[in-house]
C-alpha cells in the first residue's frame, strides 16, 4: 500500500505562491480561502539573518488528530494515507479545526470543512498534485514513501530535513529539506 508524502526543498523555494494560485484554480477553492500557503520563517537580527521559505499545507499525518476528533467520521484516512473529508458526512462542527496543530483546515462557505487533498483526483490518474506540477522552482516533490526508490524516499535518504511541530506526535508526511 502506498504512503504518499510531499518533500519541499526550502533551498529552492522562493515563496512565489504559485502553489497557492494553482491549487485555487485546480480545486475551485472559494474566495478568501486557500488550501496551501507560504511561510517566511525569519530568525536573527540585522545583519545576521536566516530565512526559511516554506510552502505549507495539510500534513496528511499518519497519526491524524483531526480524524480522531471527528464526531461524525467525516474526516478519514484514504488509501495511500491521504487525509480526506467526506463533505456529506461533515456537519461543519470544527472539532477537527481545533485539533489540527497546523491550521490546515477551513469551513467552506457551503458548510463543510475543506483542506488539501493531495489532489487525489489527479494522483488517481497518475498525475502529480497541481502545486507540484506548476512550481517554477521545482521545489515540491510528491511520491510514495513505501517505495524506497521513489524520488521522495531518495531525497529523505540523502538530504537533511525537518517536519513541522514533530513534538505533537502527529507523524506528518510533509518534509522540508534544509
Amino acid at each position: 500500500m502506498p504512503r504518499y508524502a510531499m518533500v519541499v526543498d526550502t533551498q529552492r523555494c522562493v515563496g512565489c505562491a504559485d502553489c497557492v494560485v494553482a491549487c485555487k484554480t485546480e480545486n475551485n477553492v472559494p474566495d478568501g480561502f486557500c488550501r496551501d500557503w507560504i511561510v517566511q520563517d525569519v530568525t536573527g537580527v540585522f545583519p545576521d539573518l536566516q530565512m526559511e521559505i516554506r510552502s505549507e499545507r495539510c500534513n496528511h499525518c499518519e497519526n491524524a488528530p483531526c480524524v480522531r476528533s471527528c464526531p461524525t467520521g467525516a474526516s478519514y484516512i484514504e488509501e495511500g494515507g491521504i487525509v480526506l473529508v467526506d463533505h456529506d458526512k461533515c456537519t461543519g462542527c470544527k472539532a477537527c479545526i481545533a485539533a489540527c496543530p497546523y491550521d490546515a483546515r477551513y469551513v467552506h462557505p457551503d458548510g463543510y470543512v475543506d483542506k488539501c487533498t493531495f489532489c487525489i483526483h489527479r494522483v488517481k490518474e497518475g498525475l502529480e498534485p497541481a502545486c507540484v506540477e506548476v512550481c517554477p522552482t521545482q521545489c515540491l516533490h510528491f511520491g510514495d514513501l513505501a517505495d524506497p526508490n521513489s524520488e521522495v524516499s531518495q531525497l529523505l535518504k540523502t538530504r537533511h530535513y525537518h517536519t513541522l511541530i514533530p513534538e505533537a506526535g502527529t507523524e506528518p508526511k510533509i518534509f522540508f529539506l534544509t
Partner: protein
Amino acid sequence: MARELSRREFIKISSLGLGALSLGGGLWRALANEFSASTEEAIALTGFSEGLLQRTPTVCEICFWQCAGWVHTIDGKPWKIIGNENDPNSNGRLCPRGTGGLGAYLDNDRLKTPLIRTEVRGKQTFREATWEEALDYVAQKMKKIAEKHGPDCIALFTHGSGGVFFKHLLRAFGSNNIAAPSYAQCRGPREEAYLLTYGEGIGSPERTDIRDTKCLVLIGSHLGENMHNGQVQEFADAVANGATVITVDPRYSVAASKSKYWLPIRPGTDLALLLAWIHVIIEEELYDKDFVQKYTYGFDQLKAKVKKYTPEWAYPITTIKPDVIRKTAREMAWHKPATLIHPGRHVTWYGDDTQRVRAGAILNALLGNWGRRGGFYYPNKAEVPKYPYPPYPRFKWSWREAFADKYPLANLALANGICEATIPSASRDCSFKGWIVYGTNLMLTLPQPQKTIEAIQNLELLVAIDLMPAEITGWADVVLPECSYLERYDDLRILPGREPTIALRAPAFEPRFNSKPGWWIARELGLRLGLEKYFPWKNIEEYLETRLKAIGLSLKELKEKGVVKLPDRHPIYLDEGMEIEFDTPTGKIELYSTILESYGFDPIPKYTHHEEPPEGYYRLLYGRAPTHTFGRTTNNPLLTETMDENEVWVHTKVAKLHGIENGQYVVLVNQDGVRSNKIRAKVTERIRHDCVYMVHGFGHRDKRLKKAFLKGADDNALITRVHVDPIMGGTGMRVNFVTIEPADSAA
C-alpha cells in the same frame, strides 16, 4: 495562527486564518453567475471529471516575460492555465501570475464598452458610446490635430503585445513619437551601458546564463520576488547546484536569504562597491588576462582610474567592510569565467545609472564571461519576415528636437520626455497635442505625477486603450476597452533565447462585454484615417498566416503546438580564442568608452556622491512581489487573494523611534510634503535603518477598481522628484525621502 516569537517573523502570504473573509463563492461561483449555471454544476466540473476538455495555446500577458501556455476549458468554461512544455521561457511551469491569468479575464471590474468624456450640468463624466461613434470621434480628432499641427504632434505610449499594431498605425499616420516607460523608467540605462561597452544590449529575456553560473552577483536584483519566470527557474537551479550567490541589497530579500554573502549596502553607493571590486580584481591580478588582452580596449586607463578606489575608500561610503569586499571579489575571480554580475532590469535609480551599470559591465569583461558558459550567452532569435507593408511616410518632427543637446545617447524615446514636451514652452515650436496610451497606466508609471497631470491639461486628445479602468483612463477623452489576452490573437511571440522559437496566442474565449482586440481597434482607426493601404489584411488570422507562410509554417500547425522551435541557430558560446569584432568604435569591448568620451561624459565610471536623507527621513525604495506586475494585477480576483495590499518595510529601531508597531497603518510623507495613502507597517530586521521599502503598484485611486481601490500606498505618488541620467535621459527615482506617521485612526 501568528505565534509570538522574539525577533522572528512569521508571515503567511495568504488570507487563510488571519481574518479570512468569505466573499461568498469563489471563482467558480463568480463564473457560475456569469454563465447562469448553478454552483453545483460548476463545482462538479473541477478535476478530471466529465465535460469536454479543450486546450488553446496562449502567450501570457500578465508580465512581459511572455511565457507560452495552454488555457484549459471544460465545456467552453475556463478552468486553468498551465505552461507549455516546449516553451523555453516557462519550461511548462507558469509563475503565479500566469497561473492566475484567468483572473484578468474574469475580473468584473473590466472596462466594458467605449466611453467618451462629456459634460453634464458643468460636471465632467463619461458617457457610453458605440465602437462606431468612439472610433469616428478619435479619427476626427486625430485628423484635426494633423491638419493644425502635423501628425507628429500625436504620441503613442505603449506597453504590451497589442502595442505593435498601434505603433504601425502611428507610423502610417506620420508620427514616430512612440515611447514605452520600459525604457527611461526601467531598463534603458542597462541597454545603453552594454551597448557602449560591448556594442550589444542585454535584451529581454536577459541573455544571462544563470542556469550554469558558478557565482551570481545581484546588485539590488530581487530574483524570486521579481518573478520573471525562466530567470527565477534558473536561479533556483543555480542555488541548488551550489552556486555562490552574492547579493547587494539594503534589504534582506528572498535572494539574499539564498546567498552566501549578503552585503546590506547603504542605498545609493553601489557604484563605489563596484569600483572597489574592479580595483581588487585589477590590483590582485585576478582578471582574465587573455580575454582582457584579446578583446578589450582601455585596460591601462581603467587601471589608473580605479587605483584610488580601494576597499578602504569604499568602506565608509558603502558600510561594507574592506575584507568582505576583498573576499567577495576573490570569490568572483575564483569562479571566472562562470561568474555573472547580473546587469539588473529596473535600473533607473539615482541618475548616474548608465555609469553604474557600466561598472558592472566592465567587471564582467574583466572576468571574461562574455560568450562563456555561466556568463552571457549569444542569444538566438527566430527570423520571421515582417508583414510586407508599404513604406511609412517621412517623419518631420521628433520628440528629440525638444531637448536640443540633452540625452545624446537615448536610443529610444523617453516617455517622460514626451510628457515634458507636451507642456508648452517658449523654446519649442511644437508641443504634443494628442496622446494615445495603450496598456500603460501613466499615472502609476511616470514619476512626478504632477507633471503628467499638467501635460494632460494641454492635450486636445487623450485616448486610453486598456483592459482595466486604470487611473489613466480617468483622464482620457475616449476610453477604448481592449479584451484580455485570453480573448484574442496577437502577433507572433518572437523573443531571444538559447533556441529560436515562435509562440502563438490564440483566443480561448469570445471577448466579454463590448471589448475588442487591439489589432481590430488599430485597424478600424487606420481605415477611418484613410490608411487602407497599411491595413491590407482583413483580420489577424490573415496577417499571421502571411507571416507564418514566409517561414513554411501555418496557423493550424501553430495552434496545435503553441510553440515551435526553429532549426536555424548559431552556437550560444564563443570558442576559445575566437576572433570577434565588437560593434563599438574600436571593435573591442570598451572598458574605456570612446563614445562617452566624444560626448564629454566620463569614459570610465567615476563615483558620484548622492544626497543622504535628512534626519527623521528615509530613502524610499520600491520593488516587486511575485504575484503582481506593477499596478496592472492588483485588481485581479485570483492574485489579490495572495496579496491585496502592500506594506512598508521599516527597521525595528526606526519603528520604535516613530512609535510604530508591526501591522499598524501608517502614512508616508515625502520631502515635498506629499502624503501617501495609509499603508501597513511591516516592522522587520530585514531592512537597513536608513531606508524603507514597499512593493510598487498599489494604492489605486480609481473607484472602478473595486478590489484595489485605496488598498495600500502608491510609491509613484511619492516620487515627486527624479535625477535624470544626462547620458540617456533615464529618470532616477530612488532619490525621494519619506518620514513615517501613524495613520489617523479615523482614516
